Structures are given as structure tokens and as C-alpha cells.
């Protein structure tokens, strides 16, 4: 499963590079527009190690950011699941903050909390949380009547039970969304680093961009891709385990 992921990533990546090289060839572009293979390899040798650690650095923020976004998404999703005034108010707030792209909010964030690790984390989680929120909201707002009926009619329904039932019934949807959101968290962290940080692969990409060094960007993309594949693979394995532990294994089904 994990190997398959990595293998498939390599195919995608090689395909992408080939595509660029074909364009280079067709339009006979020079090396400074699209680098040739040799130049890419040469650059790789130069920056591989450094970029690798940059990506690991970014990944660490990503993981933290993802945890925060999951918490935020569940918090807002759960408190905004009712169609009451307050529920809709929470939703409007959450939606509006998202409507303001991070580039517009960034100056305000910097004014409020200054730069450094916290800003980077905050921006990363803000980028990642919203898509999660959408799924969580969708799931939390849909009742599971045939299970909830008993609790409602006997007056035993509590909000956390309702939430638990809906999460459980949509476990596979949620694990898909959460493991998928890893890439969003990564993207968010990179954007945050691009804007604000002085470390991480986003920062390196910014410098490479500012030098118009496409070869370096390609190496960075390679490393990001491979590491995110591994991370996501691990998340998926964890998701499977949660599913099989918490709920019932599907082994027994005949039809």
C-alpha cells in the first residue's frame, strides 16, 4: 500500500518532468526557462540534503498544524451543526474568515501576534481547517435517525453522544477526509513559510523563485511529494486501524 503510493508518485513525477522537457524541446526554450535533465541532477546533488531537512522541518509544522485544524474543524463543525441562530452565526464567522485569503489576513495576524513559529502554525492551520470543516459540518448536520431515535425519545440524547453516533456512522468518510487533508496542511504550511518564515521548504522555494531557479523548485517538489506520500500512507494505515478497532471488521460479510 505504502510502496504502491510511492511508486505511483514516482510515475506522476517522472511524467511531469517529461512533459516539461517536451515543452522545452518543442519551443526550444533555454535552460533558464526550463532546466535540462543534467542541470536538474546537478542541482539535486547540490541541494538534496538541505532541502530534505527543510521538508522534514515543514512536515513537523504540518503535523502540528493538521492536529490543530482537525480540532478547530470539529469544534466549529460540532458547535455549528444546528440550524439555530447561534449555529448559523458560528458558520458565518467560520466561512468569512475563510473568504479572506490568508494573504489579506497575514498583515493583521502579524500585527496581532508578530512573526515566528506561532504565526506560521496559525496560517498553516487556517488554510487546512476549512476544507475539513466543510466535511465535518456536512456529517454533523445529518441525523442518523434509526440510531438516534432511541436516545431522543428516552431523553438520553447528549450532544457528545449525537456527535459520536454521527462520527461513527461516517467513519470511513472522515478518515478519507482527514488523511487527504494532510496534503492540504502541507500546502498550507508551505504557503505560510512562503509568506512568513525563515525556515522550511516554503522559504527555500521562495528563494528559488526569487532566483527563477526552476531546477531547485523541481527538486523541492520531488521531496515534498515523496514525503507527503509516506506521511499520508501512514495516516491511512492509522485510519484503517481505528476503523477496524472501533467498529467491526467487515471480514464476516458474505454478500
Amino acid at each position, binding site marked *: 500500500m505504502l510502496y504502491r503510493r510511492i511508486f505511483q508518485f514516482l510515475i506522476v513525477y517522472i511524467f511531469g518532468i517529461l512533459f516539461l522537457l517536451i515543452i522545452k524541446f518543442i519551443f526550444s*526554450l*533555454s*535552460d*533558464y*526557462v526550463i532546466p535540462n535533465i543534467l542541470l536538474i541532477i546537478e542541482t539535486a546533488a547540490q541541494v538534496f540534503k*538541505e532541502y530534505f531537512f527543510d521538508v522534514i522541518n515543514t512536515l513537523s509544522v504540518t503535523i502540528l498544524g493538521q492536529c490543530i485544524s482537525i480540532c478547530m474543524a470539529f469544534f466549529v463543525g460540532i458547535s455549528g451543526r444546528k440550524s439555530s441562530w447561534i449555529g448559523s452565526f458560528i458558520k458565518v464567522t467560520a466561512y468569512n474568515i475563510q473568504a479572506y485569503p490568508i*494573504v489579506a489576513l*497575514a*498583515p493583521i495576524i*502579524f*500585527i496581532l501576534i*508578530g*512573526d515566528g513559529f506561532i504565526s506560521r502554525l496559525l496560517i498553516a492551520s487556517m488554510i487546512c481547517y476549512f476544507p475539513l470543516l466543510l466535511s465535518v459540518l456536512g456529517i454533523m448536520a445529518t441525523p442518523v435517525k434509526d440510531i438516534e431515535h432511541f436516545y431522543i425519545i428516552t431523553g438520553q440524547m447528549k450532544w457528545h453522544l449525537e456527535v459520536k453516533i454521527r462520527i461513527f456512522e461516517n467513519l470511513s468518510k472522515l478518515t478519507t477526509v482527514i488523511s487527504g487533508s494532510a496534503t492540504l496542511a502541507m500546502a498550507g504550511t508551505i504557503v505560510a513559510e512562503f*509568506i*512568513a518564515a*525563515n525556515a522550511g521548504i516554503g522559504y*527555500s522555494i*521562495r*528563494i*528559488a*523563485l*526569487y*532566483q*527563477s531557479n526552476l531546477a531547485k523548485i523541481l527538486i523541492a517538489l520531488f521531496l515534498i511529494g515523496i514525503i507527503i506520500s509516506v506521511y499520508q500512507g501512514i495516516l491511512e494505515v492509522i485510519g484503517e486501524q481505528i476503523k477496524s478497532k472501533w467498529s467491526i471488521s467487515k471480514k464476516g460479510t458474505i454478500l
Partner: protein
Amino acid sequence: AEKIELNYRLKWLFNTSVAGDIYADAKGFFDDAGLNVNVKQGSPEKNAINEIELGRAQFGVASADQVIRALDKKAKIVVIAQLLQINPMQWIYRADKPKIKVLNDLKGRNIGITFGGNDETIMNTVFAKAGISKNDVNITGVRFDFTPFLMKKVDIWPVYRNTQGVILKEKLAKQNEHVFFFNPADFGINFVANSVITSMEMVKNKPDIVKKFLTSLLKGWEAAMDPANEKVTLDIIKKLDKADNDKIRKKQLTATRKLIKPFASVKIGTININAWKQTQNIMLKEKQIKNKVNIENHLIQVNY
């Protein structure tokens, strides 16, 4: 004795263009003066003026237009040294295109401009001075990468002379293409670039710290710009700027020297009051500020 903690916010990422700042730090000039200075790199989203007001930084680097805009909005800041004597914001163009000898040579060219950026203000002033209307030229919006210039879609492209300018020149040299730079200052347009700022309060209440800080900083710049120290300087830069290679950094340092200290007689940090006034006038004309801010009252040449 207890060291005094200070934060110093730069305008841009650590690279050759901030050689003196990091030199002073690395060589312990601040420590010697009894100061403990955190030199922090900048980026477009970070703003030294904000940080000084919020008390997150005590000193910072800001461009002249930032300073004038802030003064227009009653910010209580003062300029205590002007680092760049020549604005590094210049335009690169290929040598196979006609050389720009008079401003009118710009007519008919495709010129890159960062909308909203400094270069737009400067180029507008150039156009006004030469009587060029927007119809006489083609203007292309600039992003953060040079692809349109490299692909020859745009002839004249704005760069920071001492950093991007060097990189681009080098890149093109590899393909046997040569370049020139168009520097508006050569045509009498002096738009001030980066300067060191601090709060009014600081200057009033703690002049000794300001003096100590500035002395050590400019000592760092003097040393960094001294050709004799070139190797040491480059080593210090290399530690913080892994992006460029040695050759490029060396060329960048040479280019930076010319902007910081165009003549041996210029004392680093000299505030060019006339250039500041001209900058203010340009911004007034471009409607970027509403009223004159009496810039001369906010320029304090600290003697060191």
C-alpha cells in the same frame, strides 16, 4: 553589566544586500557596545514600522516610501541613517536592444512594472519627467519570477540591482547574452531606498542606546564594505544565505558596495536630505500621500 535587549527588523531576507547588518552581528560589534541585538530578517508582509510601534522591535530598516507614508499617518518614527545611497531598484535589459541614453529611448519598449510597488512610482516619475504617456510604452505586470523577461516577452524588467540583477546577469551570461541596467538616478530621479529607523521616543529618551546601536551597525557596514574584508564578509553571508553560490555572492557584494558607498568619500549612513525631499515630492505628485510630511524634521543624522 546587564546587556540591553534590542530587536532589529530588516527589510528583506538574509543575503548579500544586508551584509553590514549581519557582519556587525557576527563580529560581535553590538556585544562590544553592551547591546544584545536580535537581527531578524524581513519579507514583504513584515513591516519594521509596525513592529517598532508595537514595541516588538526597537530598530528596523524601511524604505523611504514606507517611512513617508507612515509619517503621513502620524507614526512617530525617525530616520537615523540612510543605508543605500543609490536606489537598487533598477531595470535590466538585454544588450542587443538599443541602449537607453535618454529617457525618450523608453518609448515603444515593453516595460515590466510591479503594480503598487516602488518601481511603479519611480517609473511613473520617469515618464512624467520625459513626457512619455502610457500609450507610448507597453506595460506588463510583474510577478515574483523573471520568466517573462527570460522568454523575451518583456524587454525591460525591474530588479534589485545588487541581488536579482546579479543573478540574472549571470544567468544570461551563461547563454552569451549581455545586459545593461537602466538606473533612474542617472537621469536625476533620486528616490531614496532603505534606511534605518527607530521610534521618536527612543531618540528622545535613550539617545545613548541609539548612538551605541548605530555606531556598531555602521561599523559593521564599513567593515563589510571594505574590499580588504571581502573574504570574511562572504563567509559570514554564506552562513545565512545558502541559496546562492560563492561566485554570485561575490559579485553581489561588489554591486552592493557601489550602492552603499558609491565614492570613497561618502560616509556610510549619510542621509541625503535633498533626495528625501525629492522622494516626498514624487509621492505627493503620485497622490500617495495627502500632505507634505516635512520629511526634513524626521531625519536625524546621528553622529558617530
